[in-house]
């Protein structure tokens, strides 16, 4: 899903020319649009990155620094206040809890879940995938089958089952969603390992007598990391969505705790009269995931253009 470099510039008639050999023709790839392209690419990277940082800062720091009302324990006297009410920037929900504050705390949950599931995924899944791709023979075959099974498994079922079984709670959600991220990373790491395995620098390392674990850690992992990291950004978006889904189904963070998912769930009941209760957390989810996707995509473009 790379946004490609400007190497597909159209000819009259609207279609691009090939790269020909030689300096003169190589210059064709860096045509007039490239200057604009570079600016656009830097912007495509910096804007989402900056926004993400802002988001993280807002969710984690603002309640500490600013005066934000508590996300729980609101008085029923204050229930269902509209947006812009004094003291409640975005109004309150049916229980009188401040929406803005719930938004921030819910954001904490989402970001924590996103980060945790991806970290677990990279660590465990990456390791498994590298081993699966690097080893040969029986171990590789077995691991491949296991990964196939996990891929065929409707992951949400697994997440649902685990969340259902363990009971609601943010930590349980992280466990449940890790069951999804680990195979995903394993598959990616395995594919990447297969591609790198036969490259010269890998062969050189093993010919030089380097023990296999060292090869995996010092040679393979650093080369896989960029791909894994961009995938992690996209995967964090998916995890956040899934956490929202689980909370929506009452399997995630239980009320009165704040999660974007359960905000949507409780808002759904009064959707026709107070759509804001649904729209606000929906937008929050959308914007956060979109930011992560844009950032992941920009990074992928940056790293593959190199």
């Amino acid at each position: 899903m790379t946004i490609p470099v400007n190497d597909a510039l159209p000819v009259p008639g609207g279609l691009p020319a090939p790269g020909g050999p030689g300096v003169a023709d190589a210059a064709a790839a860096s045509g007039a649009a490239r200057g604009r392209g570079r600016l656009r690419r830097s912007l495509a990277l910096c804007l989402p990155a900056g926004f993400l940082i802002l988001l993280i800062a807002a969710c984690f720091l603002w309640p500490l620094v600013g005066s934000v009302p508590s996300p729980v324990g609101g008085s029923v006297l204050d229930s269902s206040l509209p947006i812009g009410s004094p003291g409640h920037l975005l109004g309150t929900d049916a229980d009188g809890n401040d929406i803005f504050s719930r938004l921030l705390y819910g954001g904490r949950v989402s970001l924590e879940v996103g980060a945790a599931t991806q970290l677990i995924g990279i660590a465990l899944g990456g390791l498994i995938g590298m081993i699966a791709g690097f080893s040969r023979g029986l171990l590789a075959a077995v691991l491949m089958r296991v990964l196939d099974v996990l891929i065929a498994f409707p992951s949400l079922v697994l997440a649902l089952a685990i969340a259902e079984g363990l009971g609601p709670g943010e930590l349980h959600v992280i466990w449940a969603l890790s069951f999804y991220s680990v195979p995903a990373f394993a598959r990616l790491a395995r594919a990447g390992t297969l591609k790198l395995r036969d490259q010269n620098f890998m062969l050189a390392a093993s010919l030089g007598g380097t023990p296999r674990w060292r090869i995996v850690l010092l040679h393979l992992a650093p080369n896989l990391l960029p791909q894994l990291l961009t995938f992690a950004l996209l995967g964090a978006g998916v995890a956040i969505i899934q956490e929202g889904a689980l909370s929506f189904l009452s399997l995630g963070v239980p009320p009165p705790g704040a999660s974007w998912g359960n905000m949507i769930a409780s808002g759904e009941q009064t959707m026709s009269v107070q759509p804001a209760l649904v729209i606000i957390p929906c937008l929050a989810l959308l914007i956060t995931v979109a930011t992560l996707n844009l950032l992941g995509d920009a990074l992928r473009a940056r790293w593959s253009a190199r």
Partner: protein
Amino acid sequence: MTAVLEVRELSVRYRPRGRVVHAVDSLSYSVGAGRTVAIIGESGSGKTASSRAIMGLLPRSAQVSGSAVLNGIELIGLGARELRRHRGHDVAMIFQDPARSLNPTMRVGPQIAEAIRAHRPISRAAARERAIELFRLVRLSAPEQRYSEYPHQFSGGMRQRVMIAMALSCSPRLLIADEATTALDVTTQAQIMRLLTGLQAQLGMAILMISHDLGLAASFADDVVVMYAGRAVERAPARELFGNVRMPYTSALLGAVPRLDRAAHTPLPVIGGRPPVLSAPPGSAPSAGCPFAARCPRADDRCERERPELAEDEAGHAYACWHPLAGSSHEISGEA
């Protein structure tokens, strides 16, 4: 003899990041009907860019100026629709890597048939007949069967024949062969070149041959143009050029060709240095001085200051040099 293609002052400029690259600079030559002109140069000399400029195959960022007149029609600056009518019909091109130049998921026959039907309103069946006929022309065995086969089922030489068949489908007056035999092994190369010259004699077609292979040029070209750093530096009928080399560059190129009659382990003479960087500040004219000066054993101050222009002598031999060679002859190891 009327020229099929008349190129005058053809220039191609790119503007990466605010700089300007003179990929091709004021190139002029002409190709007569039934004649073969070879454009020789190393990578980066602009030879490919110039041929693509004629066909309009350069990216939008390329600024093409000058003139390329094909059968009386000016191609440079021609609108897209007009250009499309001439492509494949009056001028056709075959490329270096036939493996990648054919659509891998489409049968070979229909690829030729669509080339024909793009220019002539004939039925599918008729196009198919014509395609099979073209296969025969390029000496592909079992042409009916070949029609329904896929490119990967052909060998390199056969694929190039298919490309030639495709190029000839509308009987163009000019065929541009851009490094057409570079990717082939020597034997196949010879076969393809023989096929091309045979077809040329049969069809009266002009051929513009782009190559870095001097031996090939010597064997098959009527006229040769040597390019360096985007400019034509020597231009002459083949026999005259190789019999009477003027440019130190050309001479050095010829000297670098491995020869069977040299003693074993003789170091191969190389041309020191590298081709010049063609990028320059915006708005600047092409750099002063001879582009080859830095690498030329005969260069002096004048060469660095003043750019020599292409000047033609009585033998029809044009060269751009302040200190041309006195006309040494080189024997080329010809066609392998």
